[in-house]
């Protein structure tokens, strides 16, 4: 009997606890003043809340309205946490912020208190379930909502999209891709930390954060977005620091994408008219230049955000919202028309990667064939998901492919900053488990499924007791099939002092003779970083004021998908006695006729001679020690003369040059190895007068 009473009491108590306490004076007779303050806050919050809802319908950013509403709702909530309507409205505010996870508890409580509190209750319960990965339950709520929602407005498209998300979410969640996604606590705070972009070697990162700074927060206490930088030391990201230079302002400054060599960056910031425009900033030493905007074709009246360079730096992809449009941001592309004047052509909408919802940020992979972008549309699991699209033979982008769980979640997952080998990428997400708001996450891709190495042994020879390992049975090698690129990084230093030298580097593809890259190394560190297609032979020419130009020839082997070549280039001051080997001058074996692929190097030498008219040089030919000494001297003399003749034919006075064949008398490496012998076979010049 006593137990029964307890049950009844408990049941009663639960009913009382679960009762909706509306914001009515009759419910708060004992605290009229407190009620008035709370009710005023509730009403004020509700006004902003309505404006937020309006923005949602227009696929515009509703966040500020909702934050304003929340500021008031928090006051009301302290007074009366058991209002179904207040819980519902607060849930809506959080659902449309970067703190989506907080919405779940509010929706569940609102639903428990009064599931008829708002015509959109079922819709948002669907969202709460979706965020909890309960896709079947979510779908049922959305279907109920759809059946009962009779208004013929544009909201139908959202419901349709949510239902699609539940279907795809269930499928993607059940079949995770081969990757880990780890939170990066060093780069994340309780505020929004997003828009990561990394150098291709994965050692420098730039990101955006609205963490507290020295500026004044807005009316709801939010700080403006500033751009920060961090360096990887011993596998750990260091504390992010505001980037050096006149980049960060009191308004929002948002990082977009690095150029592939890390020397410039696209960003977006608010212009004087209050819209976002795209800007570019350049790294000089360790300082970023004041951002420069683009021509009107890109920076129209609309909001233009989240831009990315393409592989050959001729196009800019970005997101743009159409004034008065209802489909949010779309992905656009614009081509350079006049680089000096920073003129770009009229942008085109990339149809296949633009949905009826917000699309972008976008990142173009340096392979020139792959676009990574985020979108709230397509087969998202919910919120923004990251997709990739491949360029088809027609030149159009193919159908977007969802990158799958756990890259994507029902929360917002966007930005995609990949390192060169395709093993790592950094994304931003407000998924569960972070510090709050958007946080930085690191995706680690496992690559194609790895096969173990299996060893079989047999008595292949009957007479030999010791089994012979069968060398043929090693498992097949799977090579990553993505782009075949090599990261080429390094630095230019003074050969004597080892101090950084700012130098201009030209990379020539020796097969085509064309200059494929031309860039300046960092003045503070001498560093440079580019990516080159693997499987080629390249010439590198390095020039710096007051230094002898440096020339080198190198192969980038094909084979593994991505490699890293690290080169330290030591530059010599131009002074008498300096010797330099010309590594990109080629002769047929045993002959002295110059091969055509030598021309690029020779022309650089011609230019040096013309640039420094006082320069006098001795051109010398050197061989390895194979063959007769006499023959080697003769051949090297003829080769040196061939170079001199070429220079003469290009207008260099013969009196400034002497040709000398040393044969194998002056080796610079051991003749005992093939590498050493190759080093020794060279054409060299020495400065004899200046």
């Amino acid at each position, binding site marked *: 009997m006593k137990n029964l009473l307890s049950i009844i009491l408990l049941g009663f108590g639960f009913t009382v606890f679960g009762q909706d306490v509306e914001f009515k004076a009759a419910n708060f007779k004992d605290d009229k003043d407190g009620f008035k303050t709370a009710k005023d806050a509730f009403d004020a919050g509700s006004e902003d809340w309505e404006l937020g809802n309006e923005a949602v319908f227009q696929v515009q950013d509703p966040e500020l309205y909702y934050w304003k509403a929340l500021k008031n709702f928090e006051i009301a909530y302290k007074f009366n946490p058991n209002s179904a309507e207040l819980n519902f409205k607060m849930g809506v505010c959080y659902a449309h912020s970067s703190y989506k996870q907080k919405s779940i508890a509010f929706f569940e409580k609102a639903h428990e208190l009064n599931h008829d509190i708002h015509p959109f209750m079922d819709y948002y319960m669907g969202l709460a379930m979706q965020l909890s990965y309960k896709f079947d339950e979510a779908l049922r709520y959305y279907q109920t909502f759809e059946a009962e929602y009779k208004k013929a407005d544009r909201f139908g498209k959202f419901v349709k999209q949510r239902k699609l998300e539940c279907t795809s979410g269930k499928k993607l969640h059940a079949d995770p891709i081969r990757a880990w996604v780890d939170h990066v606590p060093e780069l994340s705070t309780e505020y929004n930390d997003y828009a990561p972009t990394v150098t291709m070697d994965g050692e420098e990162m730039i990101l955006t954060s609205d963490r507290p700074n020295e500026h004044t927060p807005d009316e709801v206490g939010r700080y403006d977005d500033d751009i920060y930088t961090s360096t990887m030391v011993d596998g750990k990201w260091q504390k992010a620091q505001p980037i050096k230079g006149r980049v960060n302002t009191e308004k929002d400054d948002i990082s977009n994408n690095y150029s592939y060599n890390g020397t410039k960056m696209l960003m977006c910031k608010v212009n004087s008219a209050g819209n976002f425009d795209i800007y570019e900033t350049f790294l000089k030493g360790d300082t970023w230049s004041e951002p420069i905007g683009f021509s009107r074709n890109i920076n129209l009246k609309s909001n233009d955000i989240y831009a990315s360079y393409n592989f050959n730096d001729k196009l800019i992809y970005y997101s743009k919202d159409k004034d008065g449009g209802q489909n949010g941001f779309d992905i656009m592309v614009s081509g350079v028309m006049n680089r000096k004047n920073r003129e770009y052509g009229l942008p085109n909408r990339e149809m296949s990667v633009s949905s009826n919802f917000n699309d972008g940020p976008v990142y173009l992979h340096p392979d020139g064939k792959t676009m990574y972008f985020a979108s709230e549309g397509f087969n998202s699991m919910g919120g923004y998901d990251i997709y990739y699209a491949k360029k088809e033979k027609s030149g159009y982008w193919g159908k977007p492919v969802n990158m799958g769980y756990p890259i994507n979640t029902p929360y917002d997952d966007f930005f995609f900053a990949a390192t060169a080998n395709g093993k790592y990428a950094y994304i931003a997400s407000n998924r569960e488990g972070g510090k709050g708001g958007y946080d930085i996450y690191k995706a680690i891709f*496992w690559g194609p499924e790895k096969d173990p*190495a299996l060893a079989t042994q*047999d*008595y292949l*020879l009957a007479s030999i007791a010791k089994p012979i390992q069968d060398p*043929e049975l090693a498992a097949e090698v799977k090579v990553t099939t993505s782009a075949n690129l090599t990261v080429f990084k390094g630095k230019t230093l003074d050969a004597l002092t080892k101090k950084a030298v700012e130098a201009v580097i030209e990379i020539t593809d020796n097969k085509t003779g064309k200059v494929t890259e031309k860039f300046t190394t960092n003045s503070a560190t001498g560093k440079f970083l580019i990516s080159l297609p693997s499987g080629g032979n390249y010439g590198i020419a390095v020039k710096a004021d007051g230094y002898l130009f440096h020339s080198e020839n190198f192969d980038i082997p094909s084979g593994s998908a991505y490699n*890293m070549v690290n080169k330290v280039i030591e530059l010599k001051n131009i002074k008498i006695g300096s010797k330099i080997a010309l590594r990109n001058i080629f002769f047929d074996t045993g002959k002295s006729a110059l091969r055509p692929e030598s021309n690029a190097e020779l022309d650089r030498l011609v230019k040096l001679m013309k640039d420094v008219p006082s320069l006098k040089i001795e051109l010398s030919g050197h061989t390895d020690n194979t063959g007769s000494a006499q023959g080697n001297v003769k051949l090297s003399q003829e080769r040196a003369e061939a170079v001199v003749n070429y220079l003469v034919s290009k207008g260099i006075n013969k009196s400034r040059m002497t040709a000398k064949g040393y044969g194998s008398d002056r080796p610079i490496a051991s003749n005992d190895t093939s590498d050493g012998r190759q080093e020794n076979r060279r054409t060299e010049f020495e400065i004899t007068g200046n």
Partner: protein
Amino acid sequence: MKKLLLTLAISLTGIMSFAQPDDELTPEEKAYRDSIANLNETNAAIEKSQNAYNAGIELFKQEKYEGAINKFSESIAADPNFTPAYYNKAIAENKSEKYGQAIKTLDALIAKKPDYSKAYFQRGRAYQGKKDFLSAEKDYEKSVALDPKNPKAYYNFGTLQFLQKDYESAIIQFSKVIELDPNNAYAYNDRGSCYRMLEKYPQAVKDYEEAARKNANLAFVLNNIGTTKTKMKSYEDALKDFNRALSIDAKFYLAYNNRGVTEMKMDRYTDAIKDFTKCIEINANYAPAYSNRAGAYFKNGEYAKAKADADKAISLDKNFADAYVNRGMAKEMLRDLEGACEDWHKAKELGSELGKSYKASNCSN
């Protein structure tokens, strides 16, 4: 000989019985006496040599090669002209892998009997053991030239060429063995292995099958058929062959290991784990089975077990590239990418293409 000894013994007894002081003997008598004494010494030495020789053979039969070598040495010391002792000593030295000693012994023998085909054959074996293939080849050629009907020299010549990866030449030698000795199952097996190395799998299987017909008790031949059929991707057939091998020799651990590998290729990881485990039960120090089981555990998603097995394989064989590859894979999934990269690097250094590939695609930024 017996008669002579008896006569000498009688004469000696006579001399002893009527021994005269030296100065009482004539020079002729002294010379005679000394020659007899010398003969006696020689005969005693021969006897000693022969006894030692026979004792050596007895020890050899008991596989006590060290003792046999000592006895044959005693035999040679007692009678340096007793060539069979050299020959047997060399065989015992080859058996106990003392190839350098064997070569010296056979050098001495060949100096005494330059046309002795078997001596060249054995010295060829010794050179082969020392991996001096060029010298071995010369000796086998000499042996074959001196005794063209002896299949053994052709056979060893063939194995030598096989080890030097000259499979085409080895086929010629093994074919010659088969011609001289048509029931030689080993020659069929080894010729089959040559075809296999040349990736002529159907011919390899044909020869292996013939070897199995000539001698139905050779489990390793059936195992070879199994692994060759695995190469031909005839996995179901391969399993039958391994089963046949194991029905002949239930302790043939290699067949369990190899059957496990075939099951891996059929994605039957649990069966493979059972077979690798069985292999380990029979031979607890067999590193490949641990490494392979690591691969099977990896495929089953049991990464900690995979790592433990790869650890064990490496502890048994520090230069086992496959085990480093597999341990790297397990470490990666256990979130130790740095350790994984170290292992793949080690595997690469040890010549593993797979280690090279995994390192290249996973271990730089």
